[in-house]
Structures are given as C-alpha cells and as structure tokens.
C-alpha cells in the first residue's frame, strides 16, 4: 500500500473519493526485488492472457557488477500521450484525473497506438484482438483502493497518488527522492516516475517481455495449442 491510509474493505465505495488532478505512480527501483508480485496481481486482476502484460518487470544485468536490477514497466499515463493522437477512432481517452484509458467498444485493433507508444506499454490482447494496457486499475481506485500492483507489492516499491498535489505523500516522496521519468527524451511527460533510475538502464531495457540478456530479448509466448511456453 502507499503511504496514505489504507481504505478498509467495509468502507469501499462509501467514502467520497478525493479528486486527483494527475493520477500518478512512483516506482522505487531501490526497493524492487523483482518478485513479479505486481505482474501476477495485474494479470489476475485483469485476466490478461498469456503473451500480454499490462505490468511487467524486466531483469537487467548491471554493467558495473554481476548483479541484477529490476525494472517494473507499465503504461506511463503520459501527459503528452502519442497514443491519444495516433488512434483514429478516439478509443484512447484521457480520464478526469489524467490517466489514459482505452474504450474497448471503439477499438478496432489497428495497432496505431502500439506503434506510437515509446514504452511498448500497449499490447494486443490475444483473446479480444483489441488494444489493452494499464489504466491504474480505474475500477479499484474509484472506490478508494490502490491499483492491484501497488496493493500486491511486498516492498512498497510502487506508490499511487496525485502528482499535482504537493500535500500528497506520493508527490512528496517523488520530490524528496528525485524521481524522474523513464525515456525522458521521448518528450511525453509520463506520470510514472522512477526513484533510482540510472542511465544505463535505458539501453538495457529493450522491449522484450521480461528478461533482457546481452543483445537479445527472450520473448515468452504461448503458441495456440501448446501447453509449454516456447523460447
């Protein structure tokens, strides 16, 4: 959970929710242990089929010492989101609190958003054939819960709050720890900020699904009709 007071289950949906002007997340890479609790919670929460990820964790080999760094990646809910401009059917929309959402009833799966996203955060859901991505668990946050990944993280590495509210603990945490966006040079002004982000991570974090090793990514995919993932 984030630093804010957890909402008791019995009060979910009863308490008036605070209006956020810029829903955002701070990911503390110094706390992440690469346990994939966030990926699993997200998969479970949204029934994401095999081969697709709304949230994923990449394992990166440090260039200076033989250890790994862990990099959770999700939709960055960019303030200048190129996916919004790319979509010809306006299936991607910005919510009142700044998050970017996909209207599945308007998506035709033309992949313009997939091509436009600098973070490879949008994928085609193999069951629906439509674009899919993280939306900060709108259905949870609107009743006062944290997104599933934030709730599942055992190390408090993911924190959800209002980045525009200077009083919000998450905003203050970002400020104190010097959180900054990933791939800043894409110029999309993300609302997911990273603590402990180092420059070497950007070239290392190519767009495989989970693990980056040398120059090649291992993409786990489940071909139709097979039970074991293939490499």
């Amino acid at each position, binding site marked *: 959970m984030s630093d804010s007071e957890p909402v008791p289950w019995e009060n979910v949906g009863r308490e008036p929710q605070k209006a956020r002007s810029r829903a955002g997340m701070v990911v503390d890479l110094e706390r992440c242990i690469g346990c994939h609790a966030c990926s699993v919670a997200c998969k479970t929460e949204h029934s994401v089929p095999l*081969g697709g990820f709304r949230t994923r964790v990449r394992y990166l080999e440090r260039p200076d010492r033989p250890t790994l760094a862990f990099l959770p990646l999700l939709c960055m809910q960019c303030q200048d989101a190129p996916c919004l401009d790319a979509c010809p*059917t306006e299936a991607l929309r910005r919510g009142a609190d700044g998050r970017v959402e996909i209207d599945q009833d308007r998506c035709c799966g033309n992949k313009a958003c997939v091509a*436009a996203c600098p973070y490879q955060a949008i994928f085609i859901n193999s069951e629906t054939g439509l674009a899919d991505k993280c939306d900060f668990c709108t259905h949870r946050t609107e009743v006062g819960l944290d997104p599933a990944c934030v709730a599942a993280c055992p190390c408090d590495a993911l924190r959800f709050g209002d980045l525009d509210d200077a009083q919000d603990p998450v905003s203050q945490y970002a400020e104190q720890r010097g959180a900054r966006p990933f791939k800043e040079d*894409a110029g999309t002004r993300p609302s997911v900020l990273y603590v402990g982000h180092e420059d070497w991570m950007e070239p290392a974090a190519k*767009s495989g699904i989970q693990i980056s090793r040398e120059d090649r990514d291992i993409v786990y995919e489940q071909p139709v009709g097979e039970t074991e993932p293939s490499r």
Partner: protein
Amino acid sequence: MSGGHADLILTPFGWPVVIYMTLAGISAGAALTSCWLLWKAEEGWHRLARHGLLLSAAGIFFGSLFLIADLEAPSRFWMILVYFNPASWISWGVRIITLFGMLSLFTWLLLHRGGATNGELPTSLKLTTGLIAFLGLAIGLYPAWVLMQSVARPLWGSPLIAPLFLASAVHTGLAALVLIQVMGGSERREAPGGRRLEGVLVVVQALLLGLYVLFLTSGGYDAAAARLLHGELAPWLWVGVILLGWLIPLATTLGSAAGSGRLLLRAVCVLVGGLALRTWIIFGGQGADALISTLR
C-alpha cells in the same frame, strides 16, 4: 518478420501494411500521371489515362482491403470511418483515401462516357482531375507522414521519407501505366519524355535514399543501421530497391527506343522496387534495436 501477439509490440506494422502502402503509392502515382496525360498529352494518350484512373480506384480499394486485413478486429473496420479523431493522421488519411477512390472512379466513368472532346477537357473533368491530383499528392505523402509521427521509432522520423515515398509513388504509378500500356493498351510505344522521366525519378530517389542512409548511420542506432545496410534487411535495399527498382529500369532506357519486352521488364522491376523500398523502411524502423532510447 512479425509473429504472434507478443511480437506485435515490437513489430506492429507487418506485411499487410507494406502491401497497402505500396498499393497506395501505385494508386497515387497512377492518378498523378493520368491527370498529367489528360492535361498535357495529345488525345491518343487519353485512353491510357482513363485506364490509369481505374487503376487508381482499384489500387486504393485493394490496398484498403489489406489495411482491413491488418486490423486485429477486422469486423470493426467501419469504426475508422464512423469515429473521427482530428488529431490522428490515420483518421484524415482514411477519409482522403475514400474520397480519392470515389473521385477516381467517378472521373473514369465520365471519361468512359466520352467526357473529353477534341482533346479539350470539359470544366467538370478539369475540376475532378485537379482534385484527384491534389488528393493523389496527399496519398503519395501520407503513408510516410503516418510513419514519421511515431515518437517511439526514430528511424521513421526522418522527413526524407516523405519525398522518397512520393517519388517512389510516381515511379511505381508510371510503371503500372506502362504495364497496362504493354499488356493491352493501343499505345505500345514509349511515352514522350518517358526515358528522361525515368532517369530523373531514379536520381531523385537515389539522392533521397543516400541522405536517409546518412541519417541512419549517424543517429546512434548502430544495430538497426547494420540490420538495414548489411544484415537481415540488406537484400531488400541492394537487390530490391537498387538493382531491380533502379538499375535494371535505367538500363532499359539505353540504346534504341524500348519495345514491349523492355517496357514490360522496366515496369515489373520498378513495381518490385517500390515494394522493396517500403519493406526496407517499414520493417527497418521496427524491432528492439530501433526503439527510442535503446541507445543514448
């Protein structure tokens, strides 16, 4: 080059998009050439121009079918026409393509019914051909423009792609008309200025492509540049674009006036070259090594 759903993140635009962009280029080029023939050439060439307009309509129609086939939810293709996002170039492009196809077909019908008299175009045809030429120009540029909008894939970001695609569109459109001419048209001789135009189009494309190669090799995307210039995609450039698309067609312009055989060879090679150019650029701009920030 594109596999399952996981691969779609890295390579969202696959073969259907390549074929669609090639057909769109041929349509745009054929329309521009046909309009030019109607405005400037003697009446003997008007029949070929009429065929060219039909080819434009058919090319853009079949190209659109490939675009629909590329959708992950093809049954929802109508949404692109019904819903409109003014910020999306694809939204505009789809409408331009629809208008272009309908106008080409309409103008073909007008010409088919004997719209031209004594070589002088009636006002209605001047108007429609003017509009078709304008839209053809837009369609010649549009696929490149869509690629250029992708912040995520910097190798598509070069403004050189737009004039390169336009020059290739004119080249392939002209080749498609030559193909029609050889296969069944009444005019089997080489069009006036055809050789010179062939040379100009190849030189312009070579210049633009040369600058694009400089852009590729200086942007910090070394792995992607290697893949394009001497790796997996290199045959599309050296054999497809340069040998088939440029050198062989140029060779057919040498010596005496080209007969049907040489014209046929020229047209087929140029069309293959147009497909190769788009394959090279579209697949080259995708992949893990071509994503923004993979190298800094």
